[in-house]
C-alpha cells in the first residue's frame, strides 16, 4: 500500500477513535499525529488529511442530517447564512474540518523533520 493511501486511512481511523474522547479538534490531532509518522511530500502533506477529514465530516454530517430529513440543517443553513442550502452547509462543514486537519498536518510534518535531521 502506498504511503498516501496509508496516511489517508490512518487519518480517518485515528480521527474516528479520537473523536470519541476529544472535542472537535480531535481531527487536528489525528492529522498531526499521522503526519508525524507517515510523512508525505509537498502538496500531499496538506491535501491528503484535508480530503480525509473533509470526507469524514461531510459524510458523517450527511448521515446525521439525512436521518432527520435535514430539519435542523435547513435552519442552520439559513442562520449562517447559506441561503438555506443544506448541501452547501455540508460542504462548509467538510471544508472546515479538512482545513483544520490539513494545517495541523503541515505542522506535524515540520515537527517530524526536526526529529529526523537532528
Amino acid at each position, binding site marked *: 500500500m502506498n504511503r498516501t493511501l496509508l496516511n489517508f486511512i490512518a487519518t480517518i481511523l485515528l480521527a474516528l477513535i479520537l473523536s470519541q474522547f476529544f472535542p472537535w479538534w480531535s481531527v487536528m490531532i489525528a492529522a498531526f499525529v499521522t503526519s508525524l509518522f507517515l510523512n508525505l511530500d509537498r502538496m500531499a502533506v496538506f491535501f491528503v488529511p484535508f480530503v480525509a477529514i473533509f470526507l469524514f465530516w461531510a459524510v458523517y454530517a450527511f448521515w*446525521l442530517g439525512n436521518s432527520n430529513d435535514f430539519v435542523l440543517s435547513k435552519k442552520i443553513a439559513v442562520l449562517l447564512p447559506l441561503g438555506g442550502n443544506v448541501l452547501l452547509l455540508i460542504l462548509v462543514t467538510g471544508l472546515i474540518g479538512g482545513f483544520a486537519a490539513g494545517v495541523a498536518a503541515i505542522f506535524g510534518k515540520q*515537527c517530524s523533520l526536526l526529529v529526523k535531521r537532528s
Partner: protein
Amino acid sequence: MKYLKLVSTFLLTIVVFFVLDTKLGSIPPIGKFLSPNQGVWQNEQDETISGTIQIDGLKNEVTIHYDEHLIPHIFAQNDEDLYRAQGYITAKHRLWQLEFQTFAAAGRLSEIVGEKALEYDREARRRGMGFGADNAIEKMKEDPKTLAYLEAYKEGINSYINQLTVANYPVEYKLLDYKPEPWTVKKTALLLMYMTKMLAGRDHDLEYTNTLRKFGKDRFDLLFPDFFDVNDPIIPKDTDWGFIDSEITETPQSEIPLDSIAATIEKPNPHNGSNNWAVSGDKSYSGHPILANDPHLGLNLPSIWFVMQLSTPQHNSFGATLPGALGIISGFNTHIAWGETNATRDVVDWYKIEFKDTSKKQYKYDGTWKNTSVRVEEIKIRNQKPYIDSVYYTHHGPVTYDETFKGNGQKEGYAMRWVGHIGGNNQRTFLELNEGKNYHDYLNAIKHYTAPAQNFVFASTDGDIALWIQGQFPNKWKGQGKFLMDGSNPDNDWQSFIPQEFNAHIKNPERGFVSSANQHPVDASYPFYVFNDGYETYRNRIINDFFRSKEKITIQDFKDLQNNNFNLKASELLPTIFENMDTSSLNSDEQEVYQQIKSWNFYSDINQLAPSIWETWWNKLFDITWDEFDVENVALDKPFTYQTIFMLKNHPNDAFMDIQSTPDKETANDLFLITFKETAKELKQWESEHGDYKWSDYKATFVGHILQALPAFSRFDIPIGGDYNTVNAAAKNHGPSWRMIVEMTSPPTALGIYPGGQSGNPGSKYYDNMIDQWAAGEYINLLFIQDQNNTEGIMATQTLTPKQ
C-alpha cells in the same frame, strides 16, 4: 530556516484552532459548531422517548407515556417522584429556554451575550428581581411540603443536566457557546418573579406625573378617568358588597412632587392579557359546566407553555405548565378546572427619596433621617470585567432611579414599592390546585397567592363555577399611587392590604356564567379604591354579550368565541367617521380604499382588505391625536384606546385635536381626513410592492425565537385573523399563547392548542408543529389517561427507575 518554518506552522495551527474554537462577534465557534460529532449536527434528531433511564433520588418507578403530540403523561407513585420527574422531563425537552428565562429574570444576560445586555441587566437588578426572589424563597421555606417538592424538581432538572455531554447540549448553547449550570430553587423563584414582572410590573405613575405637570388636573382627569363611560366589570355591577366591613384608607393631605422625568424603565407589553370564562351546568348544552382559558402573551419559540399530564394514585391533573415552575398553571384535574387572566391592578408605586448626602446612607422620612441598606449587584459580562451596581434600599423598596440610572440628581432618587417584592408562596397555589377536589379546595389554594394578581376562573364536576380576583392588593386611599409620591411622608406609605376574603369574587351567579378579559374588576360601588390602570374595554363586552344572548352553550360556541374576530373597537368609531368625514376631496384611489372600508362587516378575518385599512388608519389617527404627547426628554404615555375614541366622538373640537405643527386649528374631522389620505397612499404603495393588502399578509403574524426572533428558528406569515382588541387577540407577534376548553364531565373532557410545539429543539418536528392548527382555529383532543396501563393513543413509553 527550518525553525522558522516550524514556528510559523505552529503559529498557523494555533491561529486556526483559536479561530475555529472561539465565538467571534455573533458568529459561533465555527469548528465546534459544525463538527458532526459535537456540534449542531448532533441536534438533528427528535428526543428519545422510549427505554429506561436511572434517576438519582427516585423512590419508585415512574412511567412516562408520550402521545402523538409529544405530550408526556407522567405516572408516579408519590408527589416527590412526580415533581422530580416533572423537572427531569421539562429539562429534557426545554432545557435552554428553562435556563435562559431565569437568566433574563435575574439580570444575567450579559454573562451570555456580553455588554449589549448590560442596560437590561441593570434594569432587572434595580427593579429588585433578585430581592423579590429571595423574599419569595423565605416564604416558600415556611412550608416544608412546597420546599420538598421544589428540591425534588430541582434535582430532577439537575439529573438531566448531569448526564448531558457537550454533543447533546441544546443548539442555542452551541450557537452562543456556553453551557448549562445547575438548577436551584432560587431559579424557580426567579421565574415566578419574571411572570410577576411580565403581568404585574406595569404602572404609569411617573408618566402620569409628567402629564399632570404639563396639562393640569382637569385635563388629566378627562384623559385618564377612574372609570370609562362603559364598564362591564368582571364582577357584575349589581353585586352587594355589604359583607365588607374593613375601613377604607382615608385620603391624607399630601403634595404631589411634580418632577420632570426624562425616561422610565421598560414596561411589559401592554397587550399581555387573557380571556377566561365558565358556564354553569344550566347554561351548558350537556348539563356539565364548561371552562375556557386563553392567555395572550408574546408569540415565541420555544413556546412559553409545555403541556403535561401529572399523575399519582392520589391525584391526576393535565394542562399547561411553565418551564421552571411546578404543577399545572392552566388546566384541570379529575374534579376541577382552572385558568387565569391578568388582573391588571396597579401594584407598583413610586416614592421620591431625598438623601441626606451623596453617600446615600440616609434618607428623609417622617421628619428624621432613616438608614438605607445597599445591595451590591455584580453583573458578570462575557469577556469583560464585571460591572458593579450598588442599589440602595429604603423601607419602600429599591431606589431604582438615581443619578447613575435615569435619575435627576445625586441626592435624590425614586424608590419602587411593588407587591412583587413582598414575597409569597405562589408556587403552593398551583400545587394545591393540582390536588383540589372542589370549590373549597380551590379557595384554599388561591388564598396563598400574592402576585402577579390573576382572575382565577373555576369550574368543578360538582357543578360549581366561580371567579376570584386574587392577589395581594394594597388598601389604597383614593388616588394613591396614580402619581409619584413624597417618600418622606408616612401618610403616603401603603397603610394596609385588602383582607383576602374581601377580594372581589363571584360564585354560581344567576346569569349562569363568569368571565374575565382584563377589564375593570368592579364598578364604582366596590368599597376599595381601584384605579383604572389600562383595563381592556373590548374583548370583555363581546364575551359577556355573547353569553347573555344565548341560552345554551356548546363546545362549538366556545371554539367560535375564542376564535372570534369581531372588531368592536372599529365598529364604535368608523360609523362616526363615515358620518362626519368630508369625502369630496378624495381622488379615485382614495375613493376605492374608502369604499372598501365602508362596506366592512367589522370582522378582522384573514382574507379581508378592510382590517388592514383600519389598522393603518387607526395607528395614524391615534398618533396624530396625541401629538401633544411627543415631547423630547419627557416620559409620557398616551391615553388609552377607549378614551381616545371617546374624545374623537364626544370632543371633536377639543384643543387636543389640533395638530401642533400646523398653523391651522384642526378638529377631529380634519384628523380623520388627513390620516385617511395618508393611509390610502401607504396601502396603495404596499399593494404595488406586495400585492393585495389582505389582512393576514399585511399583518404578517410571526412566532419568533426567544433570541430576538432569529429568522432561522422562527415562523413567519402565519395566516390568522384578529388583532389585539378582538377576542381572538392575535396581533403581529402577540396573541393567544394557549387555548383550552374543558367540559366538566367525569373525568373532564378537554381540548387545547398552542402556537408552537412540545419540543424546544429546532431540529425536532415537534418544535412548531401545532402552529398551523392553532392559526386555523383547530384544537387537539387532550388525552386524559385514567389508567397508566391503558396505552391507547400512546406513541412511546419511557421508564424512570431509581438509581441502584
